[in-house]
């Protein structure tokens, strides 16, 4: 199966099209609708965090998304060239009525593996989700 390669800017106007592309890719991999929706949500939240935090709201900066699937494992890499920090491995308890943090909660709960790897000029986020393993919020 051919990998998915998206080269976009950090403009949130791109999110809807990216969601469609990732959803189609997940369906082609064999993920059911619920799992595809969870993966799409994680990609959306990761990209939104890139715009908000790594690029401080700038909408014209580069973002690369690469997804590949093999041996039942979906791997998604999101690369930015911004100034975002590495989130902690364990998230502190959050007050649901306080803003922020929901995106990272989604990643940690809905993906099997999430890794932020700082780069000399930005960040590489790698997420994995195995086919057939259901995750619950």
């Amino acid at each position, binding site marked *: 199966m051919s990998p998915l390669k998206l080269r976009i800017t950090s403009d949130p106007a791109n999110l809807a099209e990216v*969601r469609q592309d990732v959803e189609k890719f997940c369906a082609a991999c064999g993920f059911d609708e619920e799992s595809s*929706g*969870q993966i799409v949500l994680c990609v959306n939240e990761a990209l939104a965090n890139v*715009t908000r935090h790594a690029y401080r709201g700038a909408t014209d900066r580069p973002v690369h998304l690469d997804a590949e699937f093999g041996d039942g494992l979906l791997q998604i890499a999101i690369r930015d060239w911004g100034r975002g920090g590495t989130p902690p491995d364990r998230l502190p308890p959050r007050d649901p*009525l306080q803003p922020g943090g929901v*995106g990272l909660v989604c990643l940690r*709960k*809905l993906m099997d593996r999430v890794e932020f790897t700082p780069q000399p000029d930005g960040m590489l986020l790698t997420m994995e989700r195995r086919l057939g393993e259901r995750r619950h*919020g």
Partner: protein
Amino acid sequence: MDNSITGTDLIPAARKEGDALVLSIRGELDLHNSPTLRVDLMSLLNRAQPKRLMLDMAQVPYMDSSALAVLVEVLKRMLKSNGRVFLVGLQPRVQGLLEIARLVSIFTVCKDEQEALAM
């Protein structure tokens, strides 16, 4: 008496029902349009000053955390004036996000408008 209120692209239908403001929201909600959703909701709240706010989400197939933050801001504003917020007709992906964010029990979730209006 005409209780309809001029809507917007994201909130095409808005009306008063007693002390309730009933709003239908439409479309996928994400970081791109959640700032507009916030402005629209706050403007309608300022005009109507409702005791109860019902958000019909049946035409919202997808929502991300930025839109969820708008709903939480609206909820906090309503709670300040002892108001209530009802979320109606949640689609599975929207419901899923609310569950992950542990907000299902903080909003009042109803299956349809009739159930919300009867509460």
